[in-house]
């Protein structure tokens, strides 16, 4: 985790901060979901507790903590208690491996009478070279928490919900895995940071020369993966809805058939932990879509140079330098401060993209009705899988000629 005390402690704080970012986004998303559904259905939604109903989240969290604990007497107590804890882990680990911004470069400095640095801190919990494979492997562990919850509850509805959840997750994992193969062919790397780096520059078609009129017009657009893999984007986007058990694919918790699915017997904070897991999965999925198809933390090279590097970063660094000068002088010349500010500005851009996709998750949930189970399985196996295969082969075929 690092070579000296400073590096280890910064890495640990970063890890905890990214996990808490994920956990604290969940109540915000629940608020967005409730207010958003109210907006879509022409209602008010929670608007009494605090401004715009924002304190409702804190009230809910406290209420959940003070609920009576219920463990079904006929069920398996150990499985029942361990399932919500396992639900937290896959989302947190997968989210930690995605780079949320540019790495922070810290040049050597002096503190407490000794020399420190130079350091490079990547803006993620841990760096792992096999990014995609790791995220796919870890996030599919989420099926275990649902299965354990279903088996531990000693309730038919829970069991059927768990079975449906696992069957649907594994079915859509095929289409998802194949949609990602197209991305791998285009970028030729497993690493998220290298993928984002490959999406820099203006869009251009290799068939024409660089200064051809077609490439000049296309050059306005950023070089994002969605222009190379439109079908793959749609396939991945649809399959993450099934992976996260969201409407229109929320058969595992279909309340008209199964009461509440695998968490029928859960209540209070333990049920909330399943929600944290589900929203964590949604955040991972949104971050993956942003990295694969929408340039990650970059707004496109033109906007990055003019707007971010040219305007926002210098002005914000000057502002922070004037604040920090109250405690000590010389912050204007500090490149470390500029690097930190730049990393957080790009982090803001990335979070904006993630929140946009999370809003689409909410929007779809309150717009489309639920599928029937056989329709869901047919869509996964007989429609999405052949389309994903065709997408892979056509991408490979085009790469033969376009490279």
């Amino acid at each position, binding site marked *: *985790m690092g070579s000296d005390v400073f590096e280890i402690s910064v890495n*640990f704080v970063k*890890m905890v901060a990214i*996990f808490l970012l994920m956990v604290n986004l969940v109540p915000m998303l629940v608020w967005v979901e409730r207010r958003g559904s109210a907006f879509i259905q022409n209602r008010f939604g929670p608007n009494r507790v605090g401004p715009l109903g924002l304190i409702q989240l804190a009230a809910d969290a406290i209420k*959940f*903590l003070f609920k*009576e*604990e219920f463990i*079904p*007497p*006929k069920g398996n107590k150990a499985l029942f*208690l361990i399932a*919500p804890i396992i639900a*937290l*882990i896959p989302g947190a680990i997968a989210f*930690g491996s995605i780079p949320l911004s540019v790495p922070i470069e810290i040049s050597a400095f002096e503190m407490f009478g000794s020399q420190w640095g130079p350091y490079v801190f990547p803006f993620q*919990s*841990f*760096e*792992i070279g096999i990014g995609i494979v790791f995220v796919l492997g870890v996030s599919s562990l989420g099926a275990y928490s649902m299965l354990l919850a279903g088996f531990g509850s*000693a*309730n*038919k*509805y829970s*069991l059927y919900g768990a*079975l449906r959840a696992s*069957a649907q997750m*594994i079915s859509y*994992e*095929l289409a998802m*895995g194949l949609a990602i*193969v*197209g991305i*791998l*062919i285009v970028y*030729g790397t*497993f690493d998220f940071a290298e993928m984002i780096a490959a999406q820099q520059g203006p869009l251009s078609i290799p068939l024409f020369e660089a200064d051809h009129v077609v490439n000049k017009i296309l050059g306005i657009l950023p070089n994002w993966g969605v222009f190379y893999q439109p079908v793959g984007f749609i396939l991945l986007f649809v399959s993450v809805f099934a992976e996260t058990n969201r409407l229109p694919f929320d058969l595992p918790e279909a309340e008209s058939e199964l*009461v509440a699915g695998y968490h*029928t*017997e859960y209540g*209070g*904070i*333990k049920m909330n*932990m399943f929600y944290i897991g589900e929203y964590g999965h949604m955040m991972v999925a949104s971050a993956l879509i942003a990295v694969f198809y929408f340039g990650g933390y970059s707004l496109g090279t033109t906007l990055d140079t003019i707007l971010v590097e040219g305007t926002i970063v210098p002005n914000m660094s000057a502002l922070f330098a004037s604040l920090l000068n109250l405690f000590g002088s010389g912050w204007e010349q500090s490149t470390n401060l500029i690097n930190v500010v730049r990393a957080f500005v790009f982090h803001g851009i990335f979070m904006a993209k993630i929140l946009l996709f999370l809003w689409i998750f909410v929007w779809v949930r309150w717009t489309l009705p639920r599928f029937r*189970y*056989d329709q869901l*399985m*047919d869509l996964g*196996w*007989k429609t999405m*899988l*052949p389309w994903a*295969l065709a997408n*892979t*082969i056509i991408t*490979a*075929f085009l*790469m*033969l000629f376009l*490279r």
Partner: protein
Amino acid sequence: MTSLTPIIVLTVFVAIFGVGIVVVSALLGPKRNWTKAKKIPYESGLPGQERKETKIPVKFYLTAILFIVFDIEVVFMYPWALTYTEFIDAGLGGYIFGAMAVFVGLFIFGLIWEIKSKALEWD
């Protein structure tokens, strides 16, 4: 091993966080007497019919078996996709494309056979 250390630390941290929440909620919550009706599983108010060994439709096992077969085929495509552009740059594009075309052909054959044999029909 060094690259695994942060993952283990994060997993342990999240697990402690989860256990902590469950324990705190168990300590804070009220303790009330359990009536007989409260002990039965939630089943729309009727007396429970559940057994220890609940029967599961065989379709779910079949889906899991088919998933294993196809998922392993998809996993084989990952290293191929990763090195695809390198092969093209080395002038072996036709070879690597043909090799995968045969593999995908078998994949499609398996999928068609599976659909024809009604392994994916839900009733």
